[in-house]
């Protein structure tokens, strides 16, 4: 006897996983276009223009090019690890999204089943995200090592050192948020920030902004974005860890990078900017009650706000990329160990006192 409810549950989960994966796979296409457009406009030029209207088809052309390119494996490379590295890098980046809530749960009309806009509400959500997100680094390290090229190796090394240094600060920021919201679950974190923007963790004065600053800087370093993109510093390391990669495997690394950026943005939103919560609690406004009381409509609202906030952060990452210069390696270490970590320790003390 097959339990129909169980089948539906499993089907829903499969549907959600497939859907999220598809979205994440296709996201880099618009994102590359936007990034180049942003770069272009910031530098007073047009950006992609030729392929399609406003260069809209440029990402498609790039994708086709990457897929059709010859796949080169260097002769003295450790072939097994070389081929595995991009996949090691990519899989965790996708797996992180299992825990990220994009909206609240709602009742599906007519069949009376609760549908959650997150795949899993695990009670160690934040730990899971940090732990799995940290695994992507192995793709970079192992890829850099397996390429058997000095540029790649140095890229991998830098990445390892950077990762270790900033993982500490990132985890501290997570601890800060956990202290502010009393939960390790990301869904509970968002729920704790319910009811207007003044409830968001970023406005948990005075420590909220500090935690956010720490988180943001550490996240920048963690996902290897400017100004901390030393592992792929084109000035000194050719292309860093992916110097020897081409074609499909290269595109995997690119994909990882964009997905990581989305992850970081989503995390920032969930941890500090109220997740799917609207800036003003519309449920309290009486005129809108007929609309907001329908749970699926309200959830769609949540999805909308979440998307808007995440988009803003993605734009912020791009903005930073084209405005700030790159840090020197020793400066990077100084910032990580001597500035961020003491700040974190102080902030933990203050947060602790505030939560008593």
């Amino acid at each position, binding site marked *: 006897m097959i339990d129909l409810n169980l089948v539906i549950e499993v089907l829903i989960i499969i549907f959600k996983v497939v859907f999220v994966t598809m979205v994440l796979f296709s996201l880099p296409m618009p994102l590359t276009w936007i990034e180049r457009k942003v770069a272009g406009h910031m530098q007073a030029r047009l950006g992609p223009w030729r392929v399609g209207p406003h260069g809209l088809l440029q990402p498609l052309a790039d994708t086709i090019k990457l897929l059709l390119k010859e796949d080169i494996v260097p002769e003295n490379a*450790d072939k097994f*690890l070389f081929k595995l590295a991009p996949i090691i890098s990519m899989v965790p980046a996708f797996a992180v999204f299992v825990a990220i809530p994009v909206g609240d749960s709602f009742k599906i009309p007519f069949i009376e089943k609760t549908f959650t806009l997150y795949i899993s509400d*695990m*009670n*160690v959500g934040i*730990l*899971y995200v*940090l*732990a*799995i997100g*940290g*695994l992507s*680094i*192995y793709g970079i*390290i*192992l890829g850099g*090592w*397996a390429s058997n090229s000095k540029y790649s*190796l140095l890229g*991998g*090394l830098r990445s*390892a*050192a950077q*990762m*270790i240094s900033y*993982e500490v600060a990132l*985890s501290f920021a997570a601890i800060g948020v956990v202290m502010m919201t009393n939960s*390790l679950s990301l869904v509970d974190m968002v729920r704790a920030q319910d009811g207007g923007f003044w409830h968001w963790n970023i406005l948990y004065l005075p420590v909220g902004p500090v935690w956010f600053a720490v988180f943001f800087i550490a996240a920048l370093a963690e996902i290897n974005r400017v100004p901390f993109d030393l592992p792929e510093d084109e000035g000194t390391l050719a292309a860093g860890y992916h110097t020897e990669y081409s074609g499909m495997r290269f595109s995997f690394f690119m994909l990882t990078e964009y997905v990581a950026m989305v992850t970081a943005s989503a995390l920032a939103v969930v941890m500090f900017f109220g997740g799917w919560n609207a800036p003003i609690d519309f449920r309290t406004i009486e005129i809108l009650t007929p609309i907001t009381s329908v749970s699926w409509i309200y959830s769609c609202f949540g999805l909308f706000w979440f998307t808007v906030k995440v988009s803003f952060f993605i734009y912020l990452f791009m903005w930073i990329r084209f405005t700030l210069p790159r840090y020197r390696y020793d400066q990077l270490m100084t910032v990580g160990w001597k500035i961020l970590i003491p700040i974190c320790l102080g902030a933990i003390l203050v947060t602790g006192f505030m939560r008593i």
Partner: protein
Amino acid sequence: MMEQVFFYIFSIIAVISAISVISARSAVRSAFYLIITLMQVAAIFILLRSPFLAAVQVFIYVGAVMVLFLFAVMVLDIGREKLVAYMHHQSVIAVPAVIVFFIMGAYMIIRGGWNVSNAGFPEAALAKSSEVIGKEMFGRYLFPFEVVSLVLLIALIGAVALVLRGREKDKQC
């Protein structure tokens, strides 16, 4: 039933990759297999209904310790041959000894009986496993928990003390 299947999958992979760790010729490969082993252990923790331990296992061992390890390996450039050179004729004695120990251990573990109840925690407590762990840590195990902070301090100081002395030596040369 399903759980047992998964348990055997995870543990077989863990054992195979653990054997690969010591038989792999290059240190980076060894580290890679070790990562796989640790991940399998984390998976087994999940089967044991302890997502917190699983996450911490991945976070600390895989996410931090192994990255440092790889960093050190890549900086030191441990060659392929050097590791093999450590295999002495002692293994003639060591391998049978290990096998005997293993068989004895396995026999005793199979014959032994738990006095701890197998029922485990109620589902409600499991749903809040991190809370339960936190309460135990700051309740019953408060004192050792504080002692561990001293252990960490001494590890930190010790590492710095030894490395700084090493650097002084370089200056003198």
